[in-house]
């Protein structure tokens, strides 16, 4: 039986510490981990909880992130509740095994502290690693602050382990701006948190010697496609389960989360679509513009990146009576395309009646600051698009970039 960890009603925790406490309260059986900035404290703290008797689990030190996720897969296939953490290069090294975990339908929780990908080497926060994982078949949730970095991992276990889901879940938070920023966090009582997550129920576990089972089988052209289709359906069908778990969490804590968070969208003429710690910046900028210039700005913040919430994005667009222009803010180098949010939101908006103008900004790469004034400038630019009835700038632009103005493509809509 684990030792009791004393908690105050309100704690001052950074995102990393908050996440590690959630893993402790979920009583994870196995954490196989390799340290990397800025996610190291999550697994470092978890290791200390194990060493000090606060968790009845195992901490497995491995030689790389590839081995870390491989160890997690083995432990999950064996029948345990499993979690780990990583960032950036470590995430990239994990990618091969991420696809194994989702294909094998193992509900592992991976807490990802988002950081840029080299080259040039950079330890600061952007969303390159989050975007790298978006086709891996995992559910991806995004925490915007420390409280959410504590709340969402608890929800993640419950979502992934649901019998109709059985998929691995990533919980993202921004490197440093969330992971290393201490904020007030309201933790749950240990028993309340554990009971919310519930006992782990294994499926086809290898340690059930009465039913020997093969995991990770090879399939060729005669079987592979059916298995991938079934897996995709499970991911698409996880949406109501995510909604239900988030609703149960609200009932327990009063803290409400949705697959798409919307702020001031009811009467918004223009909207920013944005992720992570920048969401709070954008909300402040929108409030100021409403106050100072009467500009009706709303914010759409996808909480769930995968399965991508086409349904709720379309609702957000169609439910705003006056929406004219949207700007999608992508914090990842786009690699010869538009940003991910631009692509996903555009495709969702295309089948709405509103069909607003949509443009794309790349911003904040490698931890480049994104401040309120810049957010306001971008919002006012959207107002100019709305007034003109078409996008008046390049469709893709770069925010906060030194040197000559950089942009790509112009609209063909008049």
């Amino acid at each position, binding site marked *: 039986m684990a030792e009791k960890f004393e908690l105050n009603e309100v704690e001052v925790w950074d995102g990393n510490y908050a996440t590690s406490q959630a893993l402790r309260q979920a009583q994870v059986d196995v954490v196989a981990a390799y340290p990397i900035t800025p996610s190291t404290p999550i697994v470092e703290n978890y290791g200390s909880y194990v060493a000090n008797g606060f968790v009845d689990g195992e901490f497995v030190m491995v030689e790389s992130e590839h081995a870390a996720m491989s160890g997690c897969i083995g432990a999950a296939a064996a029948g345990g509740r499993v979690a780990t953490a990583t960032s950036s290069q470590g995430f990239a090294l994990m990618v091969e095994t991420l696809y194994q975990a989702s*294909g*094998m*339908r*193992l509900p592992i929780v991976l807490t990802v502290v988002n950081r840029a990908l080299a080259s040039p080497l950079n330890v600061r926060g952007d969303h390159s690693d989050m975007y790298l994982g978006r086709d891996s078949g995992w559910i991806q949730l995004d925490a915007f602050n420390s409280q959410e970095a504590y709340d969402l991992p608890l929800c993640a276990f419950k979502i992934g382990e649901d019998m109709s889901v*059985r998929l691995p879940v990533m919980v993202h938070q921004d490197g440093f701006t969330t992971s290393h920023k201490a904020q007030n966090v309201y933790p749950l009582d240990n028993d309340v948190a554990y009971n919310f997550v519930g006992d782990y129920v294994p*499926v*086809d576990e290898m340690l059930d*010697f*009465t*039913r*020997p*089972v*093969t*995991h*990770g*089988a090879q*399939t060729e052209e*005669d*079987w592979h*496609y*059916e*298995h991938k*289709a*079934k*897996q995709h*359906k499970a991911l698409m069908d996880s949406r109501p389960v995510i909604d239900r778990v988030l609703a149960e969490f609200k009932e327990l804590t009063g803290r409400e989360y949705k697959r798409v968070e919307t702020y001031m969208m009811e009467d918004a003429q223009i909207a920013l679509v944005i992720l992570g710690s920048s969401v709070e910046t954008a909300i402040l900028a929108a409030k100021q513009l409403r106050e100072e210039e009467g500009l009706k700005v709303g914010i759409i913040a996808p909480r769930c990146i995968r399965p991508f919430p086409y349904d709720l994005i379309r609702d957000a667009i169609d439910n705003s009576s006056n929406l004219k222009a949207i700007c999608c803010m992508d914090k990842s180098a786009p690699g010869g395309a538009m940003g991910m949010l631009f692509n996903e939101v555009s495709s969702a908006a295309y089948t709405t009646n509103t069909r607003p103008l949509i443009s794309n900004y790349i911003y904040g790469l490698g931890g480049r600051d994104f401040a309120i004034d810049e957010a306001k400038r971008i919002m006012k630019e959207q107002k100019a698009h709305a007034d003109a009835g078409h996008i008046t700038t390049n469709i893709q632009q770069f925010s906060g970039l030194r040197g000559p103005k950089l942009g790509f493509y112009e609209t063909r809509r008049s």
Partner: protein
Amino acid sequence: MSLQGNDNRGIRELGAEKKVGWDEVTQGVALNSFVGESENSAFLKAEERNYNDFNSYTATVASWRIIKPVYNRDICIDCQNCWIWCPDTSIISRDKQMLGIDYDHCKGCGVCVEVCPTNPKSLLMFSEAKDNNEALAGWPVKEKKVKN
């Protein structure tokens, strides 16, 4: 006992299993080895186990082989070398008595022949088309020691 094993060993070509739709495949490609519970399977002989359709036991891959080992009981000393070395567990042995080859799973690699210590060998490789009785009829005789 029969070298054919139980009823479902090698009952179809690998890949000839029934193809079901995406809604019927197992979750996460988890494949149970046996039908139902089988706590004591480690203590059962292969022919006594209730292998399920996705265990390789039920699929034959005999068609992959172009040469085959033929076993000569008259010469064999039951040393079990071939049983130990066979990479496909295709040597059938019970109570340390060599019984023969599992032709449903043998790939014809010839390792059993290489490790056979008798003179002449108790296992020799022949063309897949060669009749086993014919092969046994023409078996080589013991090689004489050459005196210096």
